[in-house]
């Protein structure tokens, strides 16, 4: 039954929202803080646990995957209902942040990748050393 999956998703979502609201009032922010993130964490934990216990079968999973597939359409509908007229007054901000931010992120890839690889090479060296 697909609805079981949707129900699990709904449960994780609501618990996440509850924690997000609590964290929001704890931090003194009027609103939900990280509720979506917590909901995601719960869904990962619950679905992993249920799969291990063989409680989550393909059918309920399809119910969750349907909503997962709906996120791009929802984001499209969301972008179509934004106050774009007002945003255009700050159009340069979007363009500059997009271009500079993305380029700088690209530049960081080889740097971070090096850190990880050095460690790998080191272990290889130590292995080599042991062999010698």
């Amino acid at each position, binding site marked *: 039954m697909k609805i079981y999956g949707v129900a699990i998703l709904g449960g994780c979502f609501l618990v996440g929202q509850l924690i997000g609201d609590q964290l929001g009032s704890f931090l003194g922010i009027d609103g939900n803080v990280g509720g979506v993130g917590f909901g995601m964490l719960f869904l990962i934990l619950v679905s*992993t646990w249920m799969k291990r216990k063989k409680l989550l079968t393909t059918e309920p999973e399809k119910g969750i995957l349907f909503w997962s597939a709906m*996120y791009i359409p929802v984001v*499209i*509908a969301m972008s179509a209902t934004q106050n774009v007229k007002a945003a255009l007054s*700050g159009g340069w901000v979007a363009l500059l942040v997009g271009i500079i931010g993305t380029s700088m992120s690209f530049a960081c890839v080889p740097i971070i990748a090096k850190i990880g690889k050095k460690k790998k090479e080191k272990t290889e060296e130590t292995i080599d050393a042991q062999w010698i």
Partner: protein
Amino acid sequence: MDLALKIIDKNALIFSFLFVGLIIYCSFWISKKFTNNKIPGSAIAIASGLFLAYLGDKKGIADIPVFAGMAFFGGAMMRDFSIVATAMGADFNEIKQAGLAGLVSLTFGVVFSFLVGGSIGYLMGYTDAVSFATIGAGACTFIVGPITGAALGASSEIIAISIAIGVIKTILVTIGTPILAKKIGLNNPHTAMVYGGIIGTTSGVAAGLAAVDERLVPYGSLTATFYTGLGCLICPSILYYLLTFIL
């Protein structure tokens, strides 16, 4: 015609399903026909969504009565619900396999984009903490931006800017990845994982890696899957909280 309008009016949400479906169909057709899939269909669809919003006013296209259902379809509840669903398929064991490099790149990627994006916004006059956080979050992905903005009560204007930033990023990543792949050494699973963690925009990463080497797609997507979740978790909470001390 009047009858058709009446039916659409009565079934506004259902009509929005049809309408968004048509937008996506056209966008993927344009993507294939005119850009050889270089610009992903979803990026074109989101961009055309922003363009359509221009036809309306404060609530975008939903201000036009026929498209009123778009406000619910793209509203906060549907948005958050579907985004939580995307966490499905991510596995804690996979996090372990992604390893330290993936974790470092994920955390670094979110914080770095947040700071760079927010700082540029700050220099251009968006100096309050909420705008800094929303623009910075938009530099993460087009999902983290509006989620952060909604959580912090940012104006629709700032939220739209953050979505625009995320869309521009997705397009740049998709086009730029095959061009820059050699320069950044993107030809192995290890770098692909780091790349996915730093860049983060799932559709851009998947499309970009597919253009470089299809075998690298799962490695990059693996870390990128967690990027939006991590961003949604820390941008409106820890990072915003730290910001309020500075700004």
